[in-house]
C-alpha cells in the first residue's frame, strides 16, 4: 500500500496567493458548514486541483481538514443543545457502508466507461440530486417563510414515525421516535452521495428533516457528527497511503475553524428556516455549475462534438459559479446574522436607556 505514495504524489510549492485562496475558501466553507452542516468541499477540492494539486492529494487534504472542522462545529452546536449524537452515530455507521458501496459503483463505472464516464456519472448525479432535493428544500423554506416561519414536520415523517417496526429508537434531541430501519437508508444514501460528489450532507440533512422529521436546526447540527466520523475514517485511509498534504490542510483549517464557529453561532441568531434557504440556494447554484461541466464529459465520450475553447469556457464558468454558490451562502448567513444581531442590540439599548432612569 505504501509504495503508491512516492510515485503518485507531487506536492505543490506554496505561494502567497495559494495560501490566501485556501484560507479564504476555508473560512467561507467553514462558515457554511457550521451553519448547514456541510459544504466547502465542493469548492475546495476542485479549487486545489486547479492550483496544481493532484486529485488524490486534494481529496485527502480536504478530508483531513473536514473532520476536525466538523468536530469543532459539532462541539459548539452540542453546547447549544442542537446535536443528536445517537442519531448522528447511527447515520454515520450506515453512511460508512454507503461510502463503500458508492466507491464500488464508481470503480465499476470507471472500468466500463473510463474516466470521462466516471466524471459524467458524478456530474449527472450532482445535477439530478441537487435539482430535485435542493429544489424541494428551497420550496419548503420559501413556504415556511411565507407562513410566518413556523416549521412543520412533513406528513411523510409523521407517517413513518407511526409504523412500528422494531427496533424502534428514540432520538431525544431530535424529539423523534422512529424505527431504525428508516434511519439506516438515509445514512446509507448520505454515504453513497459522499462517495460520489463528496458532499453527503446534501442528502443527509434533507433526509433527516423530511423523512425522519427532525428540525432543520437539529438535522444540520447532527450532520456535523456524521461528517466527523466519515471524515475521520476517510482521513485514516488516505493518510495510510501518505496522501495528506498537511500544509494545505492546516491552511484551510486555519480559516475554517474560524468560520465554522461563526456559522454555529449564526444558527442561534436566525430563524430556523434560514438553514433551509441557505442550503437550497447553494444546492441549486451548484447544480447549475455541475450542469455546465456535463458537455465536456459528453464530448470525451464522443456523444457530442464541441469546440475546445467553448469547453474550457464552460469549465471556467462552472468553477466560478461554484465559488459564487459558496459566496452567496456565506452572504445570506452573515446578512441574516447581522440583521438579527442589530435587532437584539436595539432591544438591549432600549432597556439600558430605561434602566438609566433609576
Amino acid at each position, binding site marked *: 500500500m505504501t509504495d503508491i505514495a512516492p510515485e503518485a504524489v507531487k506536492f505543490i510549492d506554496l505561494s502567497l496567493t495559494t495560501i490566501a485562496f485556501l484560507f479564504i475558501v476555508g473560512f467561507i466553507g467553514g462558515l457554511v458548514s457550521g451553519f448547514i452542516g456541510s459544504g466547502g468541499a465542493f469548492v475546495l477540492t476542485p479549487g486545489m486541483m486547479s492550483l496544481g494539486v493532484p486529485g488524490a492529494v486534494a481529496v485527502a487534504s480536504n478530508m483531513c481538514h473536514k473532520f*476536525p*472542522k466538523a468536530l469543532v462545529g459539532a462541539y459548539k452546536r452540542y453546547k447549544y443543545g442542537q446535536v443528536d449524537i445517537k442519531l448522528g452515530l447511527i447515520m454515520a455507521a450506515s453512511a460508512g457502508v454507503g461510502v463503500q458501496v458508492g466507491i464500488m459503483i464508481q470503480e465499476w463505472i470507471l472500468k466500463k466507461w473510463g474516466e470521462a464516464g466516471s466524471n459524467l456519472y458524478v456530474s449527472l448525479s450532482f445535477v439530478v440530486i441537487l435539482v430535485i432535493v435542493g429544489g424541494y428544500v428551497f420550496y419548503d423554506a420559501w413556504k415556511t417563510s411565507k407562513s410566518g416561519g413556523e416549521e412543520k414536520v412533513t406528513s411523510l415523517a409523521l407517517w413513518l414515525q407511526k409504523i412500528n417496526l422494531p427496533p424502534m429508537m428514540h432520538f431525544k434531541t431530535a424529539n423523534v421516535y422512529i424505527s431504525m430501519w428508516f434511519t439506516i437508508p438515509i445514512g446509507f444514501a448520505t454515504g453513497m452521495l459522499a462517495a460520489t460528489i463528496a458532499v453527503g450532507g446534501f442528502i443527509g440533512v434533507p433526509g433527516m428533516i423530511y423523512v425522519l422529521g427532525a428540525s432543520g436546526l437539529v438535522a444540520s447540527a447532527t450532520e456535523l457528527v456524521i461528517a466527523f466520523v466519515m471524515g475521520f475514517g476517510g482521513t485514516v485511509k488516505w493518510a495510510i497511503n*501518505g496522501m495528506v*498534504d*498537511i500544509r494545505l490542510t492546516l491552511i484551510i483549517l*486555519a480559516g475554517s475553524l474560524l468560520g465554522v*464557529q461563526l456559522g454555529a453561532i449564526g444558527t442561534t441568531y436566525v430563524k430556523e428556516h434560514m438553514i433551509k434557504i441557505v442550503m437550497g440556494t447553494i444546492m441549486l447554484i451548484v447544480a447549475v455549475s455541475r450542469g455546465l461541466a456535463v458537455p465536456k464529459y459528453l464530448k470525451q465520450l464522443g456523444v457530442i462534438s464541441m469546440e475546445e475553447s467553448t469547453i474550457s469556457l464552460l469549465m471556467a464558468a462552472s468553477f466560478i459559479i461554484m465559488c459564487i454558490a459558496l459566496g452567496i451562502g456565506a452572504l445570506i448567513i452573515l446578512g441574516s446574522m447581522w440583521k438579527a444581531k442589530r435587532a437584539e442590540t436595539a432591544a438591549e439599548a432600549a432597556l439600558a436607556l430605561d434602566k438609566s432612569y433609576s
Partner: protein
Amino acid sequence: MLSFIKKVQEKETGPEQESPRLGNGRESPPKPEVSRKILVVGKGETLDAEVMDYAVNLAERLGYDLIALSVNPTLGQKGRFFSPYKYHLREKFAQRARAAGEALKKKMALRGVNFEQVVKFGDLGKAVAAVNQQFKRIEFVITQDGVKEKEVNGEINIPVFRITGYQGERMMAKELDSRGIGLMGKTVGYGIAAAGLYAALFWNTDTVMHYFTKGSWYAALPIATVFVVSFVHGAFSNYLWEALGIQAPKRVQPRPTAAKRPVDRKRPRPQLRIDT
C-alpha cells in the same frame, strides 16, 4: 380640590381599572385555564437586574408568567387629604416604572415569558393582595432586598422568597471575569499558542512533509496534528468571536421542560350551590 381627591381615591380603591392586565384577564372571553404566575415585588421604580434575571430564568424554566409589582409605600394616602405634589410624584413614579416595564416586556417576549408590570402605592401587603385578586394563581413571591416577608404577607398568605444582594454581586463578578480581562487573556494566549504551532510546523516544512507523507503508521502524525490544531486554534477562534462580541444569545435552547410539563388539570373548587 374635592374632585381631585375623589379621583385619587378611585385610583386606590379600584386597582382593576388602573393596572394593566394579562392577556387572559376578565374582560377577554374566559379561558378554561389560568396560567400560573410568579410575582416579583420591589419598592423602587425599577426592579434589581439580578432579581429580575433570577425570576425570568425561573419563569422560563417552569413555564410560568411573570408579574413585576413596583410599590411605593411613601406615596400612599393616609387621610382624606392628598397633596398635588405627591400626586405629581406618583405620576412620575408610575411613568418611569411603566417605561422600564415596557422594555422588559419586549425582552421577555423574546424568551417566551408573559410579563406584566403593575404599579401601586401605599401598603405593600394590600398591594400584593390586590394583585393576587386581580391576576389569580400567583404561586409565590420573589422580593428584593429591603422588602420584608411580613409586609408582603400582611393580607394574604403566600410563599415569599428573597434574593439577597450577595448573589447578585457574585453573578456580576462572574460576568465581568468572563468578558473582561480573563477573556482577553485567553484569546491572546491561545492565539499565541496557535501561531506557535503553525510556525513550528511551517518552519520545518521539509522534515514535516517527509515524515507526514510516509504512510502506514506515520499516518498518526497528520491526524494527531490536526487534532491538536483543532483544539488550540479552535479554542482561540472561540474566544476571538466572544471577544469581538459575537456569541449566541442566551435564549438558544428550546425549552424541553416546557413541552414536558404535565397537562394543567382543573382543580375541583368548592362551589356554592342552591339545593333544589
